[in-house]
Every structure is written in structure tokens, then in C-alpha cells.
């Protein structure tokens, strides 16, 4: 047997040993490897994202003066309109403050908002996931809701040091409860991501719509978060009912498709609503947080 053959044999043995260790290895080993891979990959993703931002910057810088003047003029108009709106919002805020003082009502915000840029998205038929440029170092925790303005984008599924993975509303691993606008009894329905096929955008499904629910005519049916589940604040927009509401196959209730509130392929920036206090689900499912179940008993 020559050296070349010996080397090949050693490689095969090493590969087999590695596979055996991997198969027989503890979950901790798997988690560690996955985490290491994610952390190893993170700088590359960040550099790519920042590179993309830079190229966008230079692309804008190469625009002619006429284009910039025109864009600036448009922005000025929009600014003026927004300032007017802001003024009215200020009035409302003052009124709100006055009423709260009169009623001696004080409430602490239950969520801290962390704004993050989207650095990668995978809206293929399988994953329905985005990666954002904020992680554990920025205070992000698993399970936190992810929104854009008042529209739900998804939920943080995994957190690494500097990046986090977000399951979109259309991901099969996403679910939450919702109210349908127009249902005076405010009965909860069940929203669950539905894997899309390769030719169409992601969708979510709404099930458990009561049979006697009558949708308002002539206007889109908004789907709002209930705020009852302890994860999403109430009143956020999940999307609108897409198409008709139909009976389930077993005639038990009605079902419908949900068109997400935000075009999930176009998101560039999101807000992560990090709960001020750990949710029960975090305590149960993230033992690494060092919060014991018994503490809460």
C-alpha cells in the first residue's frame, strides 16, 4: 500500500469517526456546532449587508443634480404634509396625557423596541425566514414579535450574538391568535403560516372562524392580533383576508387565506418588540436563560 492509498484510507476513517461522533453526540454538541456555524457565518452576512448598503449609497451618489433636486422637492412636499400630521398627533398626545393625568392612569410599556436592518431573507417555499442585523448583544430574545410600523412581520425564532433569525408570518412554524374586524363578539381565530409553493408568494391560513361570522361588505377584512397570548401586543395588523371565507372540509368552521400586511420580500428594516419581562414560553423553552420554572411557582 503506497502513501497515497494510506492517506485516502485515513481520510475515510476520519470521516466515519466524525459521522459516528455526530450521530452519537449529545444534543449539546449539535447545538454548539450549529451556534458556531451561525456565529462564523454572521460576519460574512453582515459584511455583505453593509456592502449592499454602501453600493446603494454610491448608486445614489452617482445620480445627477437634476434628479436629486427633483427628489428633494418631492421629499419637501412629503415633509410638509407629515409635519402637519405630526402637529395633529402632538395635540392628541397632549390630550391623552391630560386624560391620563386626570384618570391617574399610569402604564409602563411592556416592550422595548429594537430597530434592526434585514440582512438576508429566504422566502423560498421551505423556510420563510429573514435574518436581521441585531442579536443577543442588542438585547434581542427568542420569541419576540417583529413588526414594521403596526404590521406584524413575524417572530424571532433564534438569536445569535449579533444576528437573529425571524420566522415570517407565512412560515409554517409561525402561529398566533387574531380577531377579525367586523366580528362584534370578538371571537378568536387561529392564524398559522402556510408553506407556499415555488410559484406563489407565502400565505398564512386563518382557521376557526365561527360559522355565523358575517364579514363586513365592501371593505377588506383586517386581521388583528388579540394581545391575549402574551406575545403580541393587541391590535397589530397581521394582514387582510385574501379571497373568500369558505367552510372547512368538515363543516366545523370557516377558513380563509391571509394576505400578510407587509410585502415580506421588500422588507429592509424591522422593529423587534422585546418583552420587558420574560414570557412563560421563554422560561420553558430557553433553559439557557437561567430562569427556573420553580422561581415562578
Amino acid at each position, binding site marked *: 500500500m503506497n502513501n497515497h492509498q494510506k492517506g485516502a484510507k485515513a481520510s475515510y476513517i476520519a470521516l466515519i469517526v466524525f459521522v459516528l461522533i455526530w450521530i452519537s453526540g449529545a444534543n449539546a454538541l449539535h447545538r454548539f456546532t450549529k451556534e458556531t456555524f451561525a456565529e462564523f457565518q454572521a460576519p460574512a452576512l453582515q459584511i455583505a449587508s453593509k456592502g449592499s448598503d454602501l453600493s446603494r449609497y454610491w448608486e445614489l451618489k452617482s445620480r445627477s443634480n437634476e434628479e436629486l433636486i427633483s427628489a428633494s422637492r418631492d421629499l419637501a412636499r412629503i415633509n410638509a404634509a407629515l409635519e402637519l400630521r405630526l402637529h395633529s398627533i402632538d395635540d392628541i398626545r397632549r390630550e391623552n396625557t391630560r386624560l391620563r393625568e386626570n384618570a391617574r392612569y399610569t402604564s*409602563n410599556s411592556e416592550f422595548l423596541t429594537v430597530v434592526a436592518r434585514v440582512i438576508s431573507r429566504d422566502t423560498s417555499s421551505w423556510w420563510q425566514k429573514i435574518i436581521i442585523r441585531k442579536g443577543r448583544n442588542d438585547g434581542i430574545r427568542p420569541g419576540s414579535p417583529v413588526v414594521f410600523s403596526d404590521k406584524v412581520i413575524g417572530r424571532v425564532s433564534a438569536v445569535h450574538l449579533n444576528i437573529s433569525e425571524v420566522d415570517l408570518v407565512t412560515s409554517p412554524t409561525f402561529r398566533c391568535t387574531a380577531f377579525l374586524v367586523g366580528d362584534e363578539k370578538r371571537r378568536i381565530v387561529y392564524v398559522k403560516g402556510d408553506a407556499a409553493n415555488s410559484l406563489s408568494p407565502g400565505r398564512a391560513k386563518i382557521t376557526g372562524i365561527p360559522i355565523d361570522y358575517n364579514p363586513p361588505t365592501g371593505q377588506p377584512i383586517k386581521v388583528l392580533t388579540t394581545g391575549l397570548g402574551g406575545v403580541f401586543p393587541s391590535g397589530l395588523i397581521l394582514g387582510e383576508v385574501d379571497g373568500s371565507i369558505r367552510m372547512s372540509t368538515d363543516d366545523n368552521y370557516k377558513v380563509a387565506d391571509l394576505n400578510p400586511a407587509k410585502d415580506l420580500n421588500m422588507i429592509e428594516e424591522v422593529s423587534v418588540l422585546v418583552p420587558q419581562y420574560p414570557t412563560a414560553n421563554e422560561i420553558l423553552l430557553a433553559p439557557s436563560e437561567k430562569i427556573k420554572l420553580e422561581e415562578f*411557582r
Partner: protein
Amino acid sequence: MSPDDSLNKISVPSAPITPWRMYVIFTVFAVGFIYIFCGLFYRQLIQSQDLIDQANSQSEVIVWRPPARGKIMDRNGRTLVENRVRWSVKANLLSLEGEIDKEYRTLVKAEKDKEDNLKINYENLHQQARVNVLNRWLKKIWFVIDESNQKKSPSDKKKVKFLANSPEREVNASALAKHMRETRILKFTLISDLTFPELRNQISDEEADRSIARFIEQFPVDGPITIESDMIRSYPFGSLACHTLGYVKDSNQLPPNFDANFEISFKKLSKSKYTGKVGAEGVEQTYDYALKGISGWERWTKTSAGYKRELLESYPSQTGSESMLSLDVNIQQAAEKALGSIKDSVGNPLPGAAIMMDVNSGEILAIVSQPNYNPNRLASKVTSKYYDEIQEQGGWMNRATQGLYAPGSTFKIITAIAGMRSGKIDYDDILECGPVLRVGNHDFPEHEPYGFGQVDVEKMLAISCNVWNYRVGLMVGPDLLAQEARRFGLDQTLLKTNPAVSGSENPNAYELPSPARRMIIPDSNYKERIGQGNWTGGDTVITAIGQGFILTTPLHMACFASSLARGETRTTPTIFHDPTRIPYHQDSRPIGLNRNQLNAIREGMIRCVTEGTARSIQIPGFQFAAKTGTAEYYKSGQKAHLAWIIGYAPAKNPQVAFAVLVEGQLDTNTWGGLTAGPVAQAMIKEWLNSKNSPSDE
């Protein structure tokens, strides 16, 4: 050597093979191949289907999909019974197998380490491992559901557990063992209904929704613990008309009308145990054949351990038919509220019954029995605790159709009719009625200490004179009294199904379960038949005022009032609404009184309301006819009173008839007009509202 020599040497072999040996070998091989070939042929072509079936039966299973039951509505289309989505938390034991095995090994090791251990019961340890693992998960589920576990701030140290008394806080080991034996193919239910209907007096609707939402949003989608929805019976009005509507209970009896080819196609496949619902009591029971719908099924492959693996095909279930009852929710609510407000000395509602029916069609607009129960608390599971609670209160009995009572003074109408039809008295005959009537050695009293003096039919009905009835009873005799009562059907079983309306194929079925059959209309031979000696004059006078041996139901008395309102003898009551119904009352005949006699009865009943025993329930501007009654009965060996009122409205051109009964207790002051009257008044008022306040002519 010559050429011939060489030829001789070649043609003669040195060791020749004998042909018979070859034949034997060929034959053995040939037989062997033929055997194998035939075997293959037999297995592949003749036995193939059986073998496929056999293989499938070991690897596939049929899982039933129970159908949603049909809705039940009132006559105006308001939903009385519907289905609601039930959210249950279930454990996928297949996904938990690894965890269970680990726990099992731990238990076995602990058992082996025990010094005094003689024999290890491995099956018990396996079961214990399952219970332990599921209990751990259940603890987590309750942790998520418990509102108090959601720490709002570090200073909030509230430790009160949400639904701490729920019976599903821990896994029921025997239920789990039964599941492993009978329904292993399905997921195991940890929490049967996240809205906790049995504890609804402790939690609000929002809290119930919150527990569903918390599970959905806080438990992972793809974990071993899942949330599943199915349909469950819902009674939006709670206990309203519960005896008429009934409730549902678990059933393993498969609805029969599924795919016609099913049995042929899947004859040899194993099938999971059917776990559906069947109607119990009320229309849910009697109309079950139509309400239950058509069962669907799913064909699954299963693992060697018996858990389901992959869905191969499915056949949807079909919702049961809808049913429209003749009840009017508003009148029913008014009757239940009024009856519920009559309470004993400790504040418990008195037992009773109330009925209002359409005089012409016989359709029942309201039928109440008290005490009642809340079928919502039985919809998910009939717990023995709640069952016993209802049993203790006497809530299972439908007093309107099953309760047998002495009709008391409401029977005096029949005594009067018997008197006039027999020619013993006429409508304008006046009888002298003192404070007592002596019959044999016994004085039978009037309820007025000084008597009523001169009394005719009208006055008798208005003031409910006893002595008049004693005397007429004696004139008529017990047999004619009994004959008259039977002519009005007081001894007939009511609520027989009308197949044309209910769709029932059984002509001997009843619209409500177990209507009373043992009504008693005593005649002169009755006492002898039951071994209590000879009939006496005293028995006759007691019967003439609706007491003694006579027993009938409130529904019979409502039908009697309805027949009287039409001037006939029988009314066929029904609980189903049919707007196209042509009024038909089986075996009904004209009442057999002349106009003056019938008017006397009717006027007497009107005077009962305007100036007589029911004057306290007059409705200003509206005239109706009634007859009250207060009968004695024995409760725990002591005398108590039954309060009755029957009648119809309006007084002219009657459209509805009614009967109300209240069972007085030993310490209650119960009188026909004062106790039962307000219930009748409430029903009439509500009927007037629903009729847009029609006024009497």
C-alpha cells in the same frame, strides 16, 4: 490396430449412466419446480388480494371523523343549539417515545436498585413512565396557561394559580391506560377544553380565550404537545329549555350512513374505536337520527407500536340536519324567569313546570321544568360530580311531560262538563253550597269558612267552590267523571311523533323522551284493582275536585285548556314547528255542550281572572280565561300544596293555552292564583309583546 478396433473402443463407455436414475432426478426437480411455480401462482394470483388485505390490516388503520351535529332553532330562527370550536391540548405519544423510554430506563434502574425488590412489573413501569413524562409536560402547559405565572413586574409576587381546581391538572392514569388499550392510534388528550366550561362560574369569556391564545402563541408549533380543534355542542341560552333540548354524551356507536362502499373496500382493515357524541334527553335524543350527521374517516398507516404515521386518504364527515322547534325563545325566557323567581324559605327555586301552546296547531311555544341544568357543562364530558348534583336537585326530570300530579281544582271544569253532559245539572242551575258537605261519616269542607251560598257553573269556576263539585260529583258518579276525563285524553300518552314533521321513520317514537304513561283516572273499580277496598262516596267527592287518586301531567292540562278553547276534546301537542301544518288533533271530537253550557264554562273562567281566584294576575286592557287550583299532596309524610293554573288567551278567539304547576314545600305558602298565576301572566305578557300587543275583541 485396425480401424474397427478403434471404433469398438469409442462406442462402448467405460461406466455407463443408468437412465432410471436420471428420470428420478428429473422427476424430483420437475415436481419441485412445479410445486414452487404452483405455489407462486397461488400466492400471487389467487391469494394476492387476501395477502394484501392481511398486510394492510397490520399496517393501516381507519380513524373515524365524527360529524358536527345539526343546529336546533326556535320558531323564529333563533339558534337554541349550535356547535362551537373546542380547543383541546393533546400529546403525540409517538413523538414522546424517546422521552418515555428514557424515563422508563430510569424507573427500571431505580427499581432494580431497591434491596427488597423481588419481582419487577415492567408493564407497570412503562405505564408509570408515560404518566411521569405527560405530567411533566402538563406542568409546563399549566405554567403557560396560568395567568399568575405571567410576572408583570419584579414586585408582582402574586402566586395564585389560574384554575387551580381544574381536574386536568394531572394526568389521569386510568384514562391513559384505557387510551393505550383502545385508542392508541389517536393523540392523548391532556386538557379536553381550553375554555373550561365546567369552571365557567370562576372564569370570564376573556380568560377562557386567553388560555387558548397563550397556548397557541407560547408553545412551539412542531412540538410533541399540540392544540387541536373539534366541534362541540353549545347551548347559547345555557339552561334555557334544557329538558326539551337535552344534551349530548360520549358514544362509541358509529353513525351508520357513511360511504356505501366503505364496508366492502375496507372490510379487513382495523378500525379505531369511534368516539363521537349521541343525544341524551330531549330533542337531542329523540331527533338524534337526523341531528347526528354522517361520519367521515381517514385511512392512516401505523407504526409497529400502533401510532398513526401517514395519512393515505380521507372522507369528510357531513353535518347533521337542522331542526326547527316550535318554541319561542322570548316566551320561554319569560316563563323560566317567572318560575325561577318562586323560591322556598332558603332561596331555592321551587320545583315546577309551565307550558304555553298554540291553541290551533298544538305547537308548544314554551315548556319549562324546574329545577334544570346547564347542558353546556355536559357537552364536553358528563362528569359524575355534576350528574349527581343534578340528580340531587331533581333536575333530570321533565316535570312538564313526566311529572304526575293531582290536577286539583283545575279538574272542576271537567266535573262541570260531566254534570252538564250527563243532564244532572244545567248551566243556570243553582246549588246551595254551605261550609261543608257531609258524605258518610266525614265532613268535606269548603275553602271559605262560611260557604258560598247559591252557586251556578259560572260562579263555581270563578270562586272555585268545592261543595258545588262535591254535590255534582255525587250526582254524576265516579264512572262518568272518569269517562269525561278520559274523553279529554287525560290518561293518554302525549307527544307521539308525527313522521311528516319530524322525519322519523318510527311511528311509535315520541318527540320528547319518556313521556308519562302512568296517568291515573280512577273509576269505581279502581280501588279494588289496587287492593284498597271498595270505592266510597268520599272518594267520589275528592275526585270531583281533582284530588285523591287522580294523576296527570302539566302538559295534559295545557292540552285540555287548548281543547276547551277550541270547543273540542283533544289537542295533539308538538315540539316541532311547521309553518305549513294543517291543524289536526287526533281523536278530537266536539266538546258535546250546547252554546249556553260552553259559554257558562268560558264566562266562569273569565270571571276567575276578573273577580275570582286569579284576579291578582289581571292584565289591564286584555282579557283572558283561567282556572286556578291548589291540591294537597304528601311530601315526606306531611301535607304540602301544589299550585295550578290553566287557561287560554285571549278570552275571545283564543290563540294560546297555558298550564303552570308549582310544587309547594312543607314550609311554603303555595296557592294556585298567587303562586302559579304570575308565571302564566308573564307568559301571556310576553306572547302579547311578540304579537305586537293585540287587544282582545
